[in-house]
């Protein structure tokens, strides 16, 4: 009996999660920019780019230090 209750509770939980997912996928954007920002936020650069860049940049001398400092002044 107790086990059945647990099962019902799990089913209920799954059902709620499903509803939640459905609700989460329906969205409204008031501007085109807002829509694009949302899309951009969930579109990261693939990890492969960083890996390639790491190898490619190894063949070149490091940039002058003074410019690196500027990086942190902005």
């Amino acid at each position, binding site marked *: 009996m107790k086990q059945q209750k647990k099962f019902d509770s799990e089913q209920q939980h799954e059902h709620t999660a499903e509803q939640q997912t459905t609700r*989460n*996928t*329906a*969205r*409204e*954007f*008031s*501007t*085109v*920019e807002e*829509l*694009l*920002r*949302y*899309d*951009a936020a969930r*579109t*990261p*650069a*693939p*990890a*492969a*780019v*960083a890996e*390639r*860049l*790491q*190898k*490619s*940049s*190894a063949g*070149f001398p*490091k*940039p*002058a230090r003074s*410019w*690196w400092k*500027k*990086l*942190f002044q*902005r």
Partner: protein
Amino acid sequence: MNEPLAERECPDQTQTDWASSEFADLYAEHSRAIFYLALRFLSDPQKAEDATHDVFLKAFRKMDQFRGEASWRTWLYRIAINHCRNLQQSWNERHMFSNADEAVWENAVAQVDSPLRVLETKELGERIQKALDTLPAEYRLLLLLIADEQLSYEEVGALTEQSADAVRGKLHRARKAFAAIFKKTE
């Protein structure tokens, strides 16, 4: 997925140099924006990946030419725009629009004020890409740049070689055209 490179494991010296470099921080901060611009502008994930790599490598090699007159983001965008435009030209202007196409944008009747509804966010990327692909390249670029909250109208104008007022005027038409096409992709 876009974790800071400095936090990654670095099995050899080259990787250690990279991970501890400020360039890795620059990449971590701006790679998403540059990749997104390349992806939606070029409409090809593999080409966007290559373009992002090439843009950052170019930036790495030319860091000493950065004069600090613009932000790093703007500087990287400039490199990315030039790179993407060059690529596009070599692909026979796949997205070049004719006068007939222009008339379509001028006559776009979407209500800019009405919201854009999305029922399935998993297909959102495809719908956005379809709508952007149909737009003239200039409109596409303006929308992508202005969507970046770090850029002002003036900066978008500087990047696209026009005044901020011209950007505002074109954006109004670009938004209308995008909204009209996006709604048809439902």
